[in-house]
């Protein structure tokens, strides 16, 4: 089956001051895939993701997303791209002054002309789909647990039925049961909503359960890209340590 490439990263170089973070990264993500960025901490996984979602700029190279070169994209086109993705931050980044339901409803109120009633129905649906109770919608982020916050943030990321979902360490801070539930949820959502998912992850079980393909970033370069089986064939100190010691 031929699949379209939705994200393409070409020769990306990133520098913070004198600190070279990425030295020519190349990778691509296909439509419908669950793709992971792996690597030791500090290797710039999150930075790469932040570059793709236009929060950081790259020094040179190019990133194309849904057919747009994001380093050259205009304001309006950028805004259009932003409506087609959902982002789940590591710290959830829920707006603390709004209730969970208001957090989820925000984009609908801002970008669609749907009535309050219709927005409420969609919010209720998203709350249910991520596994929260309807009552949780009336609570503020400070009143719910970490796992619930994650689900609420996921519901907010999903509210516009995005094509791509970006997840920054989605299972960190979750207990193992919730983490596995989260994996199942992501797989289910991918199937139901035809999502493509890009995630940064350290969670081995999650990597096994969900990822179709992945890229391992180490020493400013991509040391391997491919399926889990392909990655395990590659000789690299990080890969050997990560997969072997982690799976003892």
């Amino acid at each position, binding site marked *: 089956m031929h699949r379209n490439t939705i994200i393409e990263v070409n020769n990306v170089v990133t520098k913070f001051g004198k600190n070279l973070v990425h030295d020519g990264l190349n990778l691509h993500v296909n439509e419908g895939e669950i793709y992971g960025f792996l690597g030791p901490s500090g290797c710039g996984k999150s930075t790469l993701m932040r570059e793709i979602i236009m929060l950081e700029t790259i020094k040179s190279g190019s990133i194309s997303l849904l057919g747009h070169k994001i380093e050259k994209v205009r304001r309006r086109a950028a805004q259009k791209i932003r*409506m087609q993705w959902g982002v789940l931050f590591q710290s959830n980044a829920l707006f*603390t*002054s709004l*209730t969970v*339901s*208001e957090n989820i409803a925000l984009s*609908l109120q801002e*970008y*669609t*002309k*749907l*009535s309050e009633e*219709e927005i*409420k*129905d*969609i*919010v*209720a*649906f*998203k*709350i*249910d*789909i991520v596994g929260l109770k*309807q009552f949780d*919608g*009336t609570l*503020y*982020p*400070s009143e719910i647990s970490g796992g619930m916050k994650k689900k609420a943030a996921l519901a907010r990321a999903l509210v*516009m*039925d995005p094509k791509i979902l970006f997840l920054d360490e989605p299972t960190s801070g979750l207990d193992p049961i919730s983490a596995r539930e989260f994996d199942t949820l992501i797989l289910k959502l991918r*199937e*139901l*909503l*035809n999502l493509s998912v890009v995630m940064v992850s350290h969670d081995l079980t999650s990597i096994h359960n969900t990822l179709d393909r992945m890229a391992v970033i180490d020493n400013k370069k991509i040391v391997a890209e491919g399926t889990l089986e392909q990655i395990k064939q590659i000789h690299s100190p990080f890969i050997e340590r990560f997969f072997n010691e982690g799976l003892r």
Partner: protein
Amino acid sequence: MGSKRKVRLAIKHETDFVRFKILGEPRVECVHIIAGELKIALKEFAETTIMWDLSDLKQMDSALALLIVKDIQRAENSEIEVLLSPMEPDVEKMLAMAKKHAHFESSFEPQKEGLLQATGEDSIKRLKALGSFLGFFGEMSIIFFHSFYHLGHMRWKETTFEIYESGIKALPIIILTMFLIGVVVAYQSAAQLKIYGANIFIVDMLGISILRELAPMLTAIIIAGRSGSSYAAQIGVMKITEELDAMRTMGFDPYAFLVLPRMIALMIMMPILIFFADISGVIGGMLIAKVELGLSPSLFLERFVEVVKVKHFWIGIIKGPFFALLIATIGIYRGLQVKNDTQSIGFNTTKAVVESIFAVIICDAFFSIVFTNLGY
């Protein structure tokens, strides 16, 4: 994907039913078009058998799926038959999912509370706030006296840092502002005094007003805006990021580490800042006296020594530590009141500044009455 032009709800009469066919590929941002057309159509066909024709769709957004599921439910509730056309598997999947996860009965409206309830809750909140302030004040006093007996336990490093941060760094702005205040006050009074030829009295006027009232007040207001707000914001953020809790678990008393150094630093620096404010205010006045009234600095100073008693200076200086205590206490208290959301940082920082300026003015009025009645 779905361009707005094509998205439409086509209504077609068939022999046994009305066909609602969705044209185009409506993404969530165009679903309102379908919703609007459906509403109009239902005025006419509310009692008729409907067929939802989704055969044109390749995939469907959840917003549209919910709209259709809701309509199907409406029809079923009034026992009207609803037919569905054959559709793509993806569309069918989405429809099934919408049906499974929909909660049309949900409401996220906050419950409205009555006047009595609101009044009661507000009163209790205020009482609790008073209680928490007293608690804070008590804890602070204990630490305060404790450190007087155990000077070795005082956090001198933090204190000197705070002296630099909130005292010495505030010096330039206080000197500049007070100089300008001296200029403005002198300029305005010079114009009046000239009329009566009472030029020399500008010295009495400036000396007493600046030393006794203007310099302490202005210093307090600047410090409240500068340090009061920063204490509230800094401690507030530390509370949100659980730094305060971390300190407690490591056995560092936040009061000893954060509160006391700030308080002591301000109480030490406030009189010194007032002293500099006095000097620059008087210099500003002196400049205007020379320019506007032709009063030479030497004559100005000679008269100054003669008429402005030293008690005025001391009264101004003595207010310093009291103002400092109020500003630091309120700023820190407000910081500790921050709850686990970002809005309360803004709220409490504003409160810190407003309340501490207000408290300073009340305190000043109190001093004014006491000193006057004591004959100073």
